[in-house]
């Protein structure tokens, strides 16, 4: 009896670990495949059947990628765009989050609903209109990308920061007001420092979303190739030598843009999980 129970427990344990292993391989394998492909020589890449491990690991694909000006410019553009989007949505979002989370005024609830509705707004629905606005204003591609990315980073930032401000004790605000501080002084000097964790979380998510964005980037840079961001550069990647799709170099480029992001995400993983699940889970 006891031995049978022990046996079924062992079997359960084995199955559990097999399941863990399968999940792990499923999640990681495509990344692994990209990495080993990037390390393969040109001849090994096109050899059939494919090898599961590079025979003569080489950095030649990485070297080629770092000599590819279109790709390097894309990295620079993406950093500028994603960085500006993050700063702008945090500044504007913190203002709105404070007002919606801590201040009493008429129209608070409708404002919240507008913001919430905006988080679901499909980008494609404004594409042609936004393109026309940008062309009419004659806006350069990079600033227009920064502005247009607000459509998805701002509502989310406002939403999360509002929830965070709401959670801060109101007594802080009242005490400061009793001491004669203006609302703005209280906001900047007392509440804002307390929101630092939420700012880091939402900032990271805004940065990643902006770094990822493809539809607007592809559309608004169609006549300005020098403003292309990383996703566009990788989608349109053409090799230095061959006319065929240079998958070795593409995989190297994929690794180059992914490693920093994975490092960032792993370093801040608790914050990111918190931010992703904010609003979805009532804790």
């Amino acid at each position: 009896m006891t031995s049978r129970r022990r046996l079924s427990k062992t079997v359960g344990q084995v199955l559990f670990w097999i399941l863990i292993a399968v999940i792990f391989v499923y999640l990681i394998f495509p990344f692994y495949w990209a990495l080993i492909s990037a390390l393969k020589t040109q001849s090994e890449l096109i050899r059939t059947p494919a090898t599961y491990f590079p025979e003569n690991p080489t950095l030649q694909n990485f070297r080629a990628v770092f000599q590819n000006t279109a790709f390097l410019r894309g990295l620079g553009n993406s950093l500028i765009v994603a960085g500006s989007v993050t700063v702008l949505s945090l500044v504007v979002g913190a203002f709105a989050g404070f007002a919606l989370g801590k201040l009493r005024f008429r129209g608070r609830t409708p404002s919240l609903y507008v913001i919430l509705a905006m988080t679901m707004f499909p980008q494609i629905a404004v594409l042609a209109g936004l393109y026309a606005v940008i062309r009419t204003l004659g806006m350069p591609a990079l600033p227009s990308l920064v502005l247009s990315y607000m459509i998805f980073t701002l509502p989310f930032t406002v939403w999360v920061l509002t929830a965070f401000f709401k959670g801060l004790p109101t007594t802080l605000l009242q005490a400061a007001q009793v001491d004669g501080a203006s609302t703005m002084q209280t906001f900047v000097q007392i509440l804002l420092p307390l929101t630092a964790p939420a700012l880091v979380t939402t900032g990271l998510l805004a940065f990643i979303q902006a770094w990822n964005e493809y539809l607007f980037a592809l559309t608004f840079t169609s006549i300005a190739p020098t403003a292309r961001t990383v996703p566009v550069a990788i989608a349109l990647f053409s090799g230095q030598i061959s006319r065929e799709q240079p998958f070795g170099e593409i995989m190297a480029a994929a690794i180059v843009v992914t490693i920093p992001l994975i490092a960032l995400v792993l370093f801040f993983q608790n914050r990111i999980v918190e931010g992703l699940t904010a609003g979805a889970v009532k804790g």
Partner: protein
Amino acid sequence: MTKESRALQPAKSRGPSKLARGEERTALWLLLPSFLIIAVVALYPFGRVVLSSFTDERFAAGTDLRGEFVGVVNYQRLLSMTLRQVPAVVDVDTGERVLRDGQPTFENPRLFLRRLGTSLPLDAVATFRIGGNLWVLGATSASFIRSVWDTLVFTVSSVAIETVLGMIIALTLAAKFLGRGVMRAAMLVPWAIITVVSARIWEWMLQPTRAGFFNTLLNDLGVTDGSYAFFQTAALQVPAMVAIDVWKTTPFMALLLLAGLSTIPGELYEAAEVDGASPIRRFFSITLPLLMPTLAVALIFRTLDALRVFDLFQVVYGEARYSMASYAYYQLIAARNVGMSSAASVIIFVIIFAFALFYIRALGVDRDE
């Protein structure tokens, strides 16, 4: 002083104090930048899209041609459909159906639709057999209708698979075991990879020769001859997109569900175990109902996201196969047809909106408390 504003005041005070009025003014100033930005990047462009969807506006070289108002022509063009029975081929002399291998033969559905001589030429979206007859669904914009259908199939299948896989992963990772941190970190890897990049990685893994991973693997397993053209096989084009999307977004689903699981008190399970409830019973009686609010939000996020799919289709197929969004994109950028692109965008918006309403009704989601 209006009724509403009095309601907002604390019960004790009789009128709005100077402080309260100041607070209100500050709040409006603080909200102004957000609403200005939303107006510029969302409301005004969307209004323009709606307006130009009723015009024949086009981009010409460098300048905008303000289109003429054409009414609902763009919508007609995108949505006109007809279901027809394809005539069987009849022998001229005998007047009987021509059989090939014992099966009746039919006219070419495409030519049949052309021959109908409608004002706008019809193209075949799909053909299907009912009984012994062949039917054809014709449309004036067959590629748009197909893109809507493909996007719906993509959305339903990827969200369904993601939910089931995400649930399995979340339930597995909810157990306490050595290496749980590593697993949680691994979950963030697909999520952190740019969608365009993951499309290109899978494109490479699904190469039609054994230089690709899947053909090598399937050949080693003896399933195929190692030259299976995944992206060129029409029936596999949408499933291939689903596979990439599932890999990329299941972790998101699992993370949400995992967070939801952690809010379920452990005593419930202990009590159920004492009562002798089986693990399956426990899942359906405790886990699933308590996870419902989280699951509802996750489903909404993922469904609305999947309906807008653009990156995967555009990178892998270009104009060979469209999602709704990539159709609207190509109408704008390649065909420079602002009117048609706008009409397609409005239709997409309506479809997404309908899904959102459906979810809110069906699941009773209310995120504001």
